C-alpha cells in the first residue's frame, strides 16, 4: 500500500473502449472552435492545391507583357506580376508547390526518424550514442544553412529543398521517438512481455511502437508548417523552387522590387504562408491536447 492511487483511476466505464477513446478524442479535438476553423482552412487549401487547374482562373504560366503589373481588378483579383501573369492563379498553384514539398519532406523525415529513434532507444548502447551525437550535430546546425550548403553543391531546385528539409527534420522525429521509447521501455508492461518470452521484434512493434506514436503524429502536423515556412524562405532566397514554377517565397521576392507601386505582389503570397502555417500549428496543438492530455504544452 505505498501508492495512494487516487484521482479517479478507479472508475469503470461502460461503453466499448474504441468508441470511448474516439469519443474523448473528438470531444477535445472538436471542442475548440478555433481548431475546427483552422481545420476547415487546411481542408480548403488542400482541395485548392489538388484541383488547382480547375480552381485557378488563368494559366499561372501564361505571360502577357502588355498586361504587366496591373493592380487588383475584376479580371485579375490580385492583379498581375511583372510578366503579366495572374497573381491569384500563381498563388493557387503556389499552394500545390508548398504542400508537395511539405508532405514529401515530412513523410520522409518522419519515416526515417521514427525508425532511427526506435532503434536508438530500444537497443541503447553504442548504437544509441552514435545516433544521438549525429542528431545533436544536425540539430545544432541551422537548417537553412544546411540547405544552402546542399544548394551550393547540387544547385537550387525543389529536390534540394526536399533533401535539405528531410535532413533537417529527421532528427526531431528521431529524438522524440527515442525519448518516447526510453520511457515506454521502462514501463512494466514491456518487462511483462519479456518475461512471457516475447522476442524483440514482437515487443518493439506490438508494444513499444504503438505507445510511442501520439507525439509523432502531433510533430508531423507541426512540422508540415515548419517545412512550408522553410521552403518559402529558401525560395525567397533563390535557393529553393526556381522559376517559372509558382512558389510563394519566390513570389514575395519577385514582388519586393515593386514594393512601392504594387505591394500586393509580395503581400498576397506572404499571407498565404502565414495562414497555412498557422493552420497547421493550431491543428497540431489541438491534436496534441486531444491525443494525450499529458502532452499538453510540450514540444
Amino acid at each position: 500500500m505505498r501508492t495512494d492511487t487516487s484521482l479517479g483511476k478507479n472508475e469503470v466505464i461502460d461503453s466499448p473502449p474504441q468508441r470511448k477513446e474516439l469519443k474523448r478524442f473528438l470531444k477535445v479535438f472538436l471542442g475548440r472552435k478555433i481548431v475546427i476553423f483552422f481545420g476547415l482552412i487546411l481542408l480548403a487549401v488542400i482541395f485548392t492545391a489538388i484541383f488547382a487547374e480547375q480552381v485557378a482562373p488563368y494559366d499561372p504560366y501564361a505571360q502577357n507583357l502588355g498586361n504587366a503589373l496591373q493592380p487588383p481588378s475584376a479580371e485579375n483579383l490580385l492583379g498581375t506580376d511583372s510578366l503579366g501573369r495572374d497573381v491569384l492563379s500563381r498563388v493557387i498553384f503556389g499552394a500545390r508547390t508548398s504542400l508537395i514539398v511539405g508532405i514529401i519532406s515530412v513523410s520522409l523525415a518522419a519515416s526515417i526518424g521514427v525508425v532511427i529513434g526506435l532503434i536508438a532507444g530500444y537497443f541503447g548502447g553504442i548504437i544509441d550514442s552514435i545516433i544521438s551525437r549525429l542528431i545533436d550535430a544536425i540539430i545544432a546546425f541551422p537548417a537553412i544553412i544546411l540547405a544552402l550548403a546542399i544548394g551550393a553543391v547540387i544547385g537550387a531546385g525543389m529536390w534540394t529543398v526536399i533533401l535539405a528539409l528531410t535532413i533537417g527534420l529527421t532528427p526531431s522525429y528521431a529524438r522524440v521517438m527515442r525519448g518516447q521509447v526510453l520511457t515506454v521501455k521502462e514501463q512494466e508492461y514491456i518487462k511483462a512481455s519479456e518475461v512471457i518470452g516475447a522476442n524483440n521484434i514482437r515487443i518493439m512493434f506490438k508494444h513499444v511502437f504503438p505507445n510511442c506514436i501520439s507525439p509523432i503524429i502531433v510533430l508531423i502536423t507541426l512540422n508540415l508548417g515548419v517545412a512550408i515556412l522553410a521552403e518559402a524562405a529558401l525560395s525567397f532566397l533563390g535557393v529553393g523552387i526556381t522559376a517559372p514554377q509558382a512558389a510563394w517565397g519566390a513570389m514575395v521576392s519577385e514582388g519586393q522590387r515593386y514594393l512601392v507601386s504594387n505591394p500586393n505582389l509580395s503581400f498576397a503570397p506572404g499571407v498565404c504562408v502565414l495562414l497555412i502555417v498557422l493552420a497547421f500549428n493550431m491543428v497540431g496543438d489541438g491534436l496534441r491536447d486531444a491525443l494525450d492530455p499529458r502532452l499538453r504544452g510540450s514540444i
Partner: protein
Amino acid sequence: MTQFIIQRIYQTVIVLFILSLFCFLLIHMIPGNPVLTILGDEATPEEIRMLTEELGLDRPLPMQYLSWLGGVVQGDLGTSIIYREDVKDLILKRLPPTVHIGITSFIISIVAGVPLGVIAAVKRGGWIDGFITTSSNFSMAIPNFWLGILGIYLFALNLGWLPVQGYVSPTEDFWASQRYVIMPSLVLGLSTMAILARQARSSMLEVIRQDYIRTAISKGIKTRVVIRKHALKNAIIPVVTIAGLMLPNIVGGSVIIEQVFNVNGIGRLVLQSVFNQDIVVVQGCLIVLAIAVAAANLLVDLSYGYFDPRIRYK
C-alpha cells in the same frame, strides 16, 4: 558539476567533429569533378591542375581532412576562389553586423518572451493570456522575410521612421546604428520570442501543479511570492533548454534577414558564395557558424548549473 561540464564539452567536441567532417566533405559531394564545376567548361587544363592542387584534391581523403582541419584550428580557412581573398579575413570583415544583430535579437527574445509567457500562465484563461497566446501563434507562423518586407514598407517607406536598409556599426555612430539594427533584430527574434513565451507559459503551468507549490501555499505565503520565489525558479529550467535549441534558428534566420535588410554580414556572404559556387568560402563560413552555435549552446547548458542545484551538486 565538473562532471557535467566535462560531459557537455565532450559532447560539443563530438558534434563539432561531425560537423567539420560534413563541411570538409562538402566539396567532394559536388557531382562529377568539383574543379570542373567550379571553373566552368572553358577552364584550361593548367587552371584545372592548379585549383586541384590548391584544394589539395590530389591527396588521399584522410590526409586532406587532417590538413584542412589543421588549417581550421590555426585559423587558416583557405582562399576564396572568386574573391581570391583569405577566407578568414573575409569572414572577420563580415562578422560584426551578424553578431550584433544576432545577439540583440536573442536578448530581446528572452527578455520579452519569458515574462510574457509567465504572465500568460499566471493569468491563464483571461484575456491577457488569450492575447499573448494568439500573438505567439501568429508570430511563429509569420515568414520572417515577409515580415521584414512588411516592416520596410510600413516603417521605412511609408512612415519614414527607420532607414530602409543597410547597417551602420555602433563604433561609427551609436544612435544611427541602433536605428539600423532594431528592425532586423525584432524580425529575426520574433519567432524565438514566441516559442520562448509558449515554453515559459507551459512550464509555468506545469510547475504550478507541483506538490511543492501546494506546500508553499499551505505555509500561508502570498500567491505573488509563491510565483516569484517558488515557481519561477523551477519553471525557468526547461526554458533555458529551449533557448539553447533556438540558437541555430537565429543564426539561420540571419541569412534571410541580411538579405532582406541588405546587411553585409556572414549570412549574405554564405548566400553569395552559394550562388558563386565559392565552396571554400561556404566551407569556411559553415565551420565558423558551427563553432559559434556550439560554443553558445555550451554556455547555455552550463548556465543550467546556475539554475538547477540538482546539477550543481552532482
